[in-house]
Every structure is written in structure tokens, then in C-alpha cells.
């Protein structure tokens, strides 16, 4: 406060207080009861006296106003000289401190709530009564690609059943559960649980500040794994039964023929018996493969630890398959790097792995060509633990596999060309077995193929940790 202003204020205050006295003097002067000069002198003296008396109270009032203003903006305790004012100032300071504490406590609680929301693994959205998203936890932001708050729910989640359910929950307060299927880019299934938020105060129209209060919680539960497992189980049961039914039907047909029309025909009997033996063999192979797959899956979660040398196993298997290879005029060539480190593994399963791959190569490679088996140490491919791996690659010069089939090759009973596969005696499970063995050994399987040139199947197996 500048001195000029405060003087002006003092003057005004003094004039206000002394107005009655001034009026009296004026009347006296006009009535000639007092000379003008005397009246003016008394008036000036009166005003001056009043100004003197009002100086301190005025100063104190100004100081309180200033202190209150300063306290409202900062927390520094203001020292004001007058004792009465100090109490008011101190009271203001205490009030301010208490408000701050409350605000901080509320902020801490809100932060904890946010933290809990963010830590939840399921995507969670909070909706206000207009179906706008007021809060999305980090899982939701990641899944739906949005910021922390977005506009209407339709901005991030367009599925009609979800929008409809959200509208209904906000209207009647009853929780709802809908299924949401995403087809692209990857197929996923979600259960969407929408529950109204309990404990929101106010029965009538909420005030403007409550516009953003959450009224419903949307929780997305990822059911993809469960759905896939169910589908795969159903598919597998259907496929396995189908695979077994066909040779069984043939057997039954042959038996009927042998009991009936061919009863007395020894030549026909011999022929049919041969065919029946082939069908029985086929079923045996299938059942053996199913059992093998089942036993591998049983222990898949427990990786083997005994060190196994791969090169001798590969050579043994190649030798065992020499005869079928020769039948198609094909040659198996095994090339192994010199100092191959041992891998933690199950020798029998690894032999089965190499055998299945070689089997396929001989079946699907072009007659008269070479099948190459290469063992080498490489850098572990991305996604595999450890720095190094032993790569077991089997290359054939067949027709190659079109790229759209590659991701599905290791599926059970999946065939690129079913007629040809059955003719060659395939069960449809060879690669599935390979895949599970590789998984048990915590390795990776890579398939490369060029149509018209051939294919290479490479199993990467982690090297034993030193």
C-alpha cells in the first residue's frame, strides 16, 4: 500500500467519522455564533485528531487484509506486529494447513486407486452415465490403443452387443455379460462384464461436478485360450475318429467279402488278407503315433537334463532309413560340424524327431534326389533362451509347400494334399510329434520352403548351460 493511498483512506475515514462534528461547526458558523476562521480551525483540528486516532486501527486492518491475501496464496506464516491480529493470522494459517493435509490425503488415496486399477491384468474401463470412458487402465489402453480418457465408448470398442449392453446397464443398473469376438488381426475371444458402480451418492439429478463420476465398470476377460483349447479338443476328437474309421470300414468290408462272395476263392482270400494287413498296419501306425504324442505331452512341461550327442543319433537314424530311401532312389547325406556341443535332451525323443523329419523328406522329396541332414552350432534364434543353439536341418528337393500352409503344418492331421499323404502311408501326426518334442526341449522349429524347389525343416535345440 503506498503512503498516498493510505493517507487518502485515512482522510476519508476521518471525514466519515467526523461528519457530524463538521456539520455542527458549519451550522454554528452560518448562524454567526462562531467566526468562520475559528470554525475552520476547529474543523481542521477535528479531522487531524481523528486521522491520528485512526492511524493504528487502519494500519492493522490493512495488514490483516494483506496477510489474509498472502496466506491464501502461500503457506509462509506471516508475522504481523499487532497481537490481536496475530491470532487471526494464526487461525487462517491453521485452516490452510488443515485443508492442504486433507487435499493431500485425498490425492494419495486417488493415486492408490489408480495404481490398483493399472495393476489389474484385465483391461478395465470406467464409464460415466453418458457412456463416455472416464478412466482406462493400462491393460485397456494397450488393448484398445487409446489414451487414459477417451470419448464415447464407441470410440474404442465398436462391437454392437457391447455398446448395447453398456447402454442397458447404465439405464437399469443390472450387471450384464456379453461375448465379444475379434477376428482381425488375430482371432480373440473376450467375455465383457459390465457392472454398475455401487455407492455413487445422490438419488436425484447429480450436480455438474458429478458428471464424470463413474457409473459402470467394463471388464474384458480374455477367453481366447479357453476357446481355442475347446475347439482343438473337439477338432482332434473328430479327426482322430475319422482317421480310424476309414481303415476300420475297409477292414469290415473285406471281412464281409471273405465271409461271403470270396468264401471259396483262395486267391482272392490271399489278396484280401494282404489288403487287410495293410489297413491294420495303418491303424497300428496311427495308434502308435497317438500314444507317442500323448506320452510326449504328458512330460512336455518338464524339460530333460541329460546331455545328448546329436551327431551319432542322426547317423543312426539315417542308416535305419536307408532302405525306404533306396526304394525311391534317394540318398541321405548327414553333415555334422566337428565340435558339436551336447544338448540337454531325451535321446529317444530326439531320435524320433529326426526320424519323423527324415521320413517326411523321403516321402515328399522328388525321387532320385538327395536328402541333406545338417547339424551345426548357430546363434539361438529370437525367442529362444540362451545365446547358442544346435541346429538340426533336414532339406529335401520336393515340390515345396505353398506359404499359406506353412503356419498350419504342425497341426494334428493337417495335410497339404490328403490323397497323396494317405497314399504314402502318412498318419498326419508326424510334424505334430516333432513340434511337441521341440517344445519339451525348449527349442524352436523353423520351416522354410520354396514352391518348385524344396523344403528345409530346422529344429533349434538349446545348448547345455555351462
Amino acid at each position, binding site marked *: 500500500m503506498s503512503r498516498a493511498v493510505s493517507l487518502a483512506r485515512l482522510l476519508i475515514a476521518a471525514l466519515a467519522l467526523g461528519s457530524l462534528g463538521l456539520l455542527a461547526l458549519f451550522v454554528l458558523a452560518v448562524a454567526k455564533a462562531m467566526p468562520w476562521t475559528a470554525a475552520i480551525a476547529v474543523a481542521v483540528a477535528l479531522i487531524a485528531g481523528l486521522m491520528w486516532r485512526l492511524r493504528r486501527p487502519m494500519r492493522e486492518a490493512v495488514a490483516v487484509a494483506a496477510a489474509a491475501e498472502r496466506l491464501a496464496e502461500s503457506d509462509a506464516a506471516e508475522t504481523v506486529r499487532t497481537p490481536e491480529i496475530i491470532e487471526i493470522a494464526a487461525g487462517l494459517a491453521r485452516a490452510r494447513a488443515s485443508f492442504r493435509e486433507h487435499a493431500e490425503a485425498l490425492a494419495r488415496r486417488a493415486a492408490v486407486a489408480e495404481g490398483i486399477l493399472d495393476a489389474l491384468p484385465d483391461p478395465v474401463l470406467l464409464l460415466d452415465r453418458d457412456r463416455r470412458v472416464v478412466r482406462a487402465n493400462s491393460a485397456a489402453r494397450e488393448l484398445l490403443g487409446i489414451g487414459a480418457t477417451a470419448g464415447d465408448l464407441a*470410440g474404442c470398442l*465398436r462391437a454392437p452387443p457391447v*455398446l448395447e449392453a453398456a447402454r442397458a446397464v447404465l439405464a437399469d443398473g443390472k450387471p450384464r455379460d456379453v461375448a465379444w469376438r475379434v477376428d482381425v488381426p488375430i482371432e480373440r475371444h473376450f467375455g465383457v462384464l459390465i457392472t454398475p458402480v455401487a455407492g455413487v451418492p445422490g438419488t436425484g439429478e447429480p450436480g455438474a461436478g458429478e458428471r464424470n463420476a463413474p457409473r459402470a465398470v467394463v471388464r474384458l476377460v480374455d477367453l481366447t485360450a479357453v476357446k481355442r483349447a475347446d475347439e482343438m479338443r473337439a477338432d482332434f476328437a473328430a479327426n482322430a475318429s475319422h482317421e480310424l474309421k476309414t481303415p476300420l470300414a475297409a477292414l469290415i468290408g473285406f471281412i464281409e467279402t471273405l465271409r461271403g462272395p470270396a468264401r471259396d476263392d483262395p486267391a482272392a482270400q490271399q489278396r484280401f488278407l494282404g489288403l487287410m494287413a495293410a489297413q491294420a498296419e495303418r491303424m497300428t501306425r496311427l495308434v502308435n503315433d497317438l500314444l507317442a504324442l500323448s506320452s510326449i505331452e504328458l512330460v512336455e512341461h518338464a524339460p530333460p537334463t541329460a546331455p545328448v550327442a546329436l551327431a551319432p543319433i542322426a547317423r543312426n537314424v539315417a542308416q535305419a532309413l536307408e532302405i525306404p530311401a533306396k526304394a525311391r532312389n534317394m540318398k541321405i547325406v548327414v553333415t555334422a560340424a566337428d565340435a558339436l556341443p551336447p544338448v540337454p535332451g531325451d535321446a529317444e525323443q530326439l531320435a524320433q524327431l529326426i526320424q519323423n523329419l527324415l521320413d517326411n523328406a523321403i516321402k515328399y522329396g522328388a525321387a532320385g534326389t538327395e536328402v541333406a541332414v545338417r547339424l551345426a552350432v548357430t546363434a539361438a534364434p529370437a525367442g529362444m533362451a540362451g545365446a547358442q543353439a544346435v541346429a538340426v536341418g533336414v532339406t529335401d528337393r520336393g515340390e515345396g509347400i505353398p506359404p499359406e500352409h506353412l503356419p498350419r503344418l504342425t497341426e494334428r492331421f493337417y495335410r497339404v494334399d490328403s490323397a497323396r499323404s494317405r497314399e504314402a502311408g502318412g498318419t498326419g501326426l508326424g510334424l505334430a510329434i516333432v513340434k511337441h518334442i521341440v517344445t519339451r526341449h525348449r527349442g524352436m522349429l523353423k520351416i522354410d520352403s520354396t514352391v518348385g524347389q524344396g523344403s528345409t525343416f530346422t529344429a533349434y535345440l538349446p545348448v547345455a548351460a555351462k
Partner: protein
Amino acid sequence: MEHTVKSFDEQLRRLNEIILRMGGLAEAALSSAMQAVNKRDVDLAAEIVKDDAKIDELNRDVDELAVRLLALRQPMANDLREIVAALRISADIERIGDYAANIAKRAIAMAEMRPSRALPGIARMGRLAQRLIKEVLDSYAEKNADKAMVVWARDEEIDDAYNSLFRETLTYMMEDARAITPSTHILFIAKNIERIGDHATNIAETVYFMVKGRPLKESRPKGDLSAFLTQPGAQPAAGEPEPPRE
């Protein structure tokens, strides 16, 4: 941009929300239609045909609201572009819904015949289209012109898939006369999907214009060569005109 009249903001948001809801319905319609084709689900297909009416209704809502906003508010610049964009996108989504319903109708017919060997191919084409629609609607929701451009450039993928499916189906028809009827349905479905892809591209162009304020200069690469095909495996002969690539 803040509007001094709050309700204009709300009206624009409502317009936006109706478009997104329409988009969601069209996405669901295409997804269900492809499922009906693959799983021979006649009941699902009938539902899709019925639900197309909802998309048409929302399209009328958009027309009404947009025209009212244009008349009453006389908007400029961004707002004008946004409202015009909504009108065009709504029309494109409505067509997509119609094509999805057509696919569903074909699924009903196909359920009565033996499954065509071209089914995996058409399923893949359907997924491509679904992906384009999802990404273009996301780009509209986020007002992201770059995302829209990505969709715009990818329409060629569907055209390529269509060409390859066309050839494949012709082969099946030539091999076995009994395959002609289901293959013809497949071809119609494929054409519908290809048109859906084109509409998705249109939406992408509109989104780009809405965000950037200027149209996409280059023309879309056109890849549908099937009109020039005489036999499966044939390439357009040397004397024939090159398919137009502006």
C-alpha cells in the same frame, strides 16, 4: 476447437458416435457373414439379413442430423469437413452392410450344396476385408490420416486375392461340372468382398481429406484384372490394352 455454443460440440460428437456405431454393426455383419459361409450356418445368415435394416436406419439418422447441422449452424472449415465426411462415410458403411447381407444370402444358398474347394481362399479374402474395415474405422475414430493412408494403399491386396481366387474357381469349374453352382456363388461372394474393400478405401480417402483438408492426390492402384481374363492361367495378351493404372 471450443465452440461458444456447447450443444454444437455435442451434436458433432453425436454424429461421430452414430458413424462409429454403424461401423461396428457393419464389422459385425461382415464377420458373421464370413462365419455363416464357412460354417454353413443358415440361422446366423438369416439374422444378418434382418439386421441390415439397423444400419440403413442409422444412415438415415446421419443424413438427417448432418443436414440439420449444415442448415442451422452453417459451419466453416474443420467442422464443415467433418460433417461432409460423416455424410460420405455413412453412405460407404451402408453399402458395406448391404454387401455383407448379400454374402449372407449366398451363404444360405451354399449351405444346401457340397462345400466348395475355394472356401479357404474366400475365408482369407474375407479376413483381409475385415482388417481393412477395422483399420479404416480406427483411423476415423482417432482422426489419424496416416493410418487412413495405410488402408488406402492396401486395397491392392484384396484385388490380388480376388484375381487368384477367380483363376482358382475357374479351374474347379472346368474340372467338374458339379462344382459350377457352388463356384458361381463363391465368385459372387468374392466380388462382394472386393467391393467392400473398395468402399473401405473410399472411407480412407474421406478420412484423409477430413483431417488434412486436401484430397489424396494420387489415384488408387487398381488391381482387378479379372475383366481381361479369357482362360484360367492366361495373361492379358500382348495386343490387349494394359489395365488402367493412372
